C-alpha cells in the first residue's frame, strides 16, 4: 500500500508582531553601596513578570508561549536558565517554557527580536521577553576565560574587551567628537531624565521592589538610583579619565555600573486582538551587525542601515530615536553619521543610560518602554527606532511603528 500524498503544508504568511506592554525595576547602582546590594537578580526579573501579568489581566498566563530572559553573565543568581526559573518563581504555569539568552548589552533586545521572529513565523502567539543584569553580583566579564587565540592571532585587541577603551578608540577615529561635546551631551541627558521624571513619564513603567540591604530593614525601591539631576559641565570637567591618561571618557559621560531588570509582553497582532491586549508599538524590522570590536560603539550605524533597508525606510522617516547611551561618544558617532544634531529633540527625549543607568542585558526593553510612551504622547510620529551598541563589536537596531499615527496599518 503506498502512502497517501501528504499536503498539509499551508502557504505560510508572516504575522505582525506587536509590543503589548513593558516594565522595568528601578535601576540601582552596582556594588556594596547600591540599593540592590543583597537582592537577587532573578527576584528582580520575577517582580517584572508579575507586574506585567497584573497590568494585563486579560492575558491568561497559560497563553504565554515563551519566557526569554537575557543576562550577560549566566551564573549564580543569573544562572540556571533564568527564563525558565524566573517563570516558575513568578508563578506562571509549569506549561510555560523559558530560556536564557545572551548578546551582552543587547540581551533584552535580542530576547525581543528572537521571540518576535518566532511569533512572525507562527511558533508563538504571546511571549515575555526581557533581561537582567546585577552588575554588583556579576561584574562585567567576571569568570570569563577569553580564548588566547584572540591575542595570539590578533583577532581582537585585548584592550577591546574593556568597553571604556573602545570608547576612547572611537574618539580617536572621530576627532570631531570632543570631550566638550560628550560632556555637554551627558549634561543634557541628565536634564532630560529629570524633566521626564518631573513630567511623570518614567514612573508608570517602573515596578516597585521591596529590597533589603545587609543589616538593614526592608524598604521599597520606587525610583532610579543612578541619576544625578543638576549635573553641570563644570562638575563633569574635572572627572578622572580612567581608561586613558588625559583621555576623554569619564564616569560622567558614560553609563555607570548598574543593577536592574526589564520585561515586556509581545504578541502576534491576531493574538493581541483576540485577547484584548494593548498595542503600544508594531515591529517593523530589526537587524544586528558586527564591527571591529575595538570600536564597538559604532555598531548601531551598520545595524540601522540594515534595518532601514529591510523596512524600505530612510533615516528621515524616523521620528524618534531611543539610543542606548553606553558612552556619549558612541551616541554622537551615530548622530554625526546621519547628520543629526547633538541636541536634536527626536533623540532620547527622556534622557538615556548616562543618567538612568545601563544594567547591561536589561537595557533593550527600557528603550522600547520609553519609545512606546513617546509614541503615545506624539501621534505625529509614525516610525521610531531603538538601537544600541554591543560589546565585542556589534550593533542592534529595531524599528517600530506608532499605532497612534493616523496612517498606522495603512501601507505597512
Amino acid at each position: 500500500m503506498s502512502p497517501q500524498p501528504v499536503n498539509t503544508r499551508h502557504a505560510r504568511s508572516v504575522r505582525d508582531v506587536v509590543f503589548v506592554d513593558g516594565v522595568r525595576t528601578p535601576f540601582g547602582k552596582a556594588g556594596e553601596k547600591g540599593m540592590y546590594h543583597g537582592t537577587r537578580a532573578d527576584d528582580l526579573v520575577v517582580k517584572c513578570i508579575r507586574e506585567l501579568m497584573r497590568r494585563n489581566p486579560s492575558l491568561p498566563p497559560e497563553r504565554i508561549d515563551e519566557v526569554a530572559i537575557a543576562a550577560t553573565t549566566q551564573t549564580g543568581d543569573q544562572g540556571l536558565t533564568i527564563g525558565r526559573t524566573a517563570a516558575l518563581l513568578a508563578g506562571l504555569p509549569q506549561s510555560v517554557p523559558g530560556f536564557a539568552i545572551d548578546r551582552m548589552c543587547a540581551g533584552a533586545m535580542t530576547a525581543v527580536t528572537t521571540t518576535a521572529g518566532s511569533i512572525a513565523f507562527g511558533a508563538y502567539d504571546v511571549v515575555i521577553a526581557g533581561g537582567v543584569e546585577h552588575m554588583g553580583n556579576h561584574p562585567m566579564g567576571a569568570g570569563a576565560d577569553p580564548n588566547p587565540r584572540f591575542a595570539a592571532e590578533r583577532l581582537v585587541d585585548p584592550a577591546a574587551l574593556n568597553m571604556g577603551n573602545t570608547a576612547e578608540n572611537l574618539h580617536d577615529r572621530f576627532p570631531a567628537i570632543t570631550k566638550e561635546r560628550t560632556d555637554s551631551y551627558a549634561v543634557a541627558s541628565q536634564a532630560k531624565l529629570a524633566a521626564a521624571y518631573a513630567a511623570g513619564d518614567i514612573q508608570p513603567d517602573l515596578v516597585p521592589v521591596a529590597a533589603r540591604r545587609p543589616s538593614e530593614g526592608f524598604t521599597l525601591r520606587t525610583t532610579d538610583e543612578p541619576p544625578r539631576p543638576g549635573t553641570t559641565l563644570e562638575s563633569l570637567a574635572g572627572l578622572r579619565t580612567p581608561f586613558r591618561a588625559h583621555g576623554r571618557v569619564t564616569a560622567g559621560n558614560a553609563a555607570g555600573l548598574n543593577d536592574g531588570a526589564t520585561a515586556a509582553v509581545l504578541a502576534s497582532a491576531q493574538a493581541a486582538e483576540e485577547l484584548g491586549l494593548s498595542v503600544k508599538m508594531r515591529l517593523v524590522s530589526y537587524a544586528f551587525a558586527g564591527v571591529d570590536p575595538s570600536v564597538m560603539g559604532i555598531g548601531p550605524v551598520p545595524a540601522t542601515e540594515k534595518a532601514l533597508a529591510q523596512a524600505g525606510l530612510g533615516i528621515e522617516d524616523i521620528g524618534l530615536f531611543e539610543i542606548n547611551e553606553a558612552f556619549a561618544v558612541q551616541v554622537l558617532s551615530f548622530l554625526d553619521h546621519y547628520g543629526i544634531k547633538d541636541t536634536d529633540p527626536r533623540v532620547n527625549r527622556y534622557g538615556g543610560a548616562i543618567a538612568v543607568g545601563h544594567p547591561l542585558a536589561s537595557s533593550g526593553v527600557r528603550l522600547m518602554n520609553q519609545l512606546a510612551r513617546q509614541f503615545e504622547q506624539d501621534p505625529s510620529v509614525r516610525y521610531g527606532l531603538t538601537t544600541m551598541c554591543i560589546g565585542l563589536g556589534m550593533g542592534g537596531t529595531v524599528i517600530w511603528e506608532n499605532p497612534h499615527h493616523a496612517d498606522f496599518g495603512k501601507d505597512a
Partner: protein
Amino acid sequence: MSSRTIENFASLAALVPDEIITHSLVEDVVLPGGATLALLTLDNGFDHTKPTTLGPNTLLELHAALTAQKERAANGAIAALAVTGKPYFLVAGADLNGVKNLASPEHGAAMATLGHACYDLLADLGVPTFAFINGVALGGGLEIALACSYRTVSTGANGIGLPEAFIGLIPGWGGVYRLPRLTGPEAAMTVMIENPLNNNRSLNGAAAFKLGIADALFEPADFLEQSLLWAGNVLGGAEVPRPNAVEPNGNPGVSARWAAAAAKARAFVEAKTSNAAPAPAKVLEVFEAGASITQKESAALEIAALTEMMQTNAFHNTVYAFLDLVQKRSKRPAGAPDKKLARPVTKVGVVGAGLMAGQLALLFARNLKVPVVITDIDAARVEKGLSYIHSEVDRQLAKGRISPDAANRTKALVTGSVSKQAFADADFVIEAVFEELALKKQVFAEVEAVVSPECILATNTSSLSVTEMGRDLDNPERLVGFHFFNPVAQMPLLEIARTQWTNDTALATAFALGKSLRKTSVLVKDEAAFVVNRILLRLMGEIANAFDDGTEASVADGALRPMGLPMSPFKLLAMVGIPVAHHVSESLHAAFGERFRVSGNQQVLIENGIKSLWAPTGDGGMEIPASTLGLLEFGNTPSTSEELLVRTQDALAQEIGLMLAQGVVAGPEDIDLCMVMGAGWPMHLGGITPYLDQVGASERVNGKKFHQH
C-alpha cells in the same frame, strides 16, 4: 512606660546575656499615595536556620524603636507603621531559652509587662499600624500582628498560631483578648486550645486569612510589595471587611457564643489531658473573663496568669522536653558513633511477610528509595505481604499523599521471595518474625549463610535478648537491635540496641538509617525490653497487680489520671494487645524477677479471646462486662487511687534508677526522649523523670533526684 520601669527592664535584660537579639530595623517607605510608612523589619542577622525570637533585650530595642516612631507619628512625619520579618519569619515567638531562666515571679511579671508595653505601642501609635505576616508567627510573634490595626499574610507562610497552651503558658501578650475578637470565639478556641493540644498544630497563611486573623492574602513572590500597596489603599480609605469580627462586651448573643466555645474547649481539654497541666484551663479562664472587660483589664489578668504559669513545673518541663530533648538531643543522639563510619545501604532485606514486616518494608522503600525484598516460608505468605504493601501504597495515593509516580516507584522497589538467596546483595537485613529466640537464631543463621560478612543484621524484637541472637553468629559484630513502635509509619521513636559485640560501623549505619527513615534514634544497651516497653510494662504491671488484688477497675484504671498520660493503662493494654503485653511481661519477669509480675488474670483473658477489659455500654459509657469479670480472680487487698498513684510513681522511679545504673541509656534525658517520642507521654511531665523528681518519687526510692539542678 516611665523611665523607672525601663530601668527595671534593663536589669531583666541582664539576666539573659546570651540572647540572640532580634533587631528592629526601621526604613521609611513612600507609598504610591504619597504617605510615608515606617517599615520595621524584625531581623536577628542570621539566615532561616536561626529563627527570630523575642527576649528581653529584643523587646527593649523594639520598645525604643516604636517609641521613636510614635513621636514621629505625633509630629506628622509618618502616616503609618508596618511590621514585617526577615525571610520566612515574622517572629517565631518568645525566646523560651531565655524566659525559662527568669526564675523569680518578679522577673516573670516584668517580662510579661514588657511585652504588653511594646504591643500597647503598636495598638496605640497614633497612626494605623500594619503587620505583614511573611512567615512563621507563633505565640508572641503572632500577638505582635494581632496588636496592629491591620494584617496581611503570605500564602507561603507556615507556622502561624498561639501554641502557649502546649508550652505551658497562655497567649498573654494580648492574644487571648484580641484573637477571638477578630475570628470569633469558636475559631479562637481552635487556635488557642485545640491546635496546641493536637500535637501543637499551626495554621498556614491561607487558613489564617480564612479565619479572619489577616485582612488580606498575597503570594510570596511579591508579598511585601503588594502588602505595602494594600496598606496605601487602606490609608486612602479602602474598606477592610471583617466578617468574623465580634465584640462580646454589651452583646449578649456574642457573649453566649463565648461561653459555649469555652465550654466546648473545656471538655476538649478534659478529654485530651485529664486537666493534668494547668495552662489550658488558665487560657480558658482568661479568655472567658475577657468577654466582659476592657483590653487594659485583660492585660492585667494576662500578666498575672503568665507570671503564675512561668513558675509552674509543667512550663519548665515542657521547655525541657521540647527544646532540650525533641529539638536538640534528638538530633544528636547520645553515644552514636561518628556518622562517617556508616556504610551505604543500597538494598534492604526483610525476613517475614507479616504485618510488621510489611510495615517495615514500606517504610524502607518509601524513605530510603532502595530495593527492599521480603521473604517468608511460602509463596502465599509472600504474596499476602506484597499485596498488603501495594494496598497501603494505593491508599496513600488515593488520599493524595503521594503522586502516581511515587506510588509506582515504591511498588516497584518492593519484591518478594521464598528464598533468602534474594538477600545475597543486601546491605541491611532486618528480621520481623515471630517473637521466639530459637526461630530468630535460625533465621539469622540462614541469612548469614547468604549475605556478605559486612551486611548489617537487625532485629525488631521488642523483648528478646539481642545478645543471645548474636551468640552463634560468625560475625556477631554486625548485629543490632532496631526496635520500631507500632504503627511504624507514625511513631517517631527507634530504639537502637547494641550488644557487647556490636561494632561502630554497624551502629553508625543503624543511626544513619534511622535518620533516613526520619526517626528519632536512641542508643540503648541490650537489656530486656529496652526503654519504652520496660517502663510501660512496669507501669501497667502496677495497675494490673492492684486490679488483680481487688482494686475496683475504675479506681485502678483512673489512678494515674493526674499524670495526664495519653491513655489509661487498660486502654493501653487493649491497644498493645493483651497477648503481646503478656509476652513482654514474661520476658521481663524472666530477666528482672518479681518487679514484673505475670498476671494470671491476663492469661485467662487471652485464653478466652478477650481483647479489652473495657467494653462500651448501651448508654455510651464504659464497663467491664460481667461475663469478663466472672472469669477473673481477685484478691482482697484493694488500693485507693492515691496509694496506687504514689506506688506507680515509686515503681517508675525505681525502674528508671535501675535502668540508669545498668547503663541502658546515657542519661535520664534519653529515658524522657524515649517516653515522649515512643509512648507519647506528655511534655508537661518532661517525659517522666522531671515529674518523678517533682513528686518526690526519685528521692523516696533512690535517695536522689534524676536531675540535680
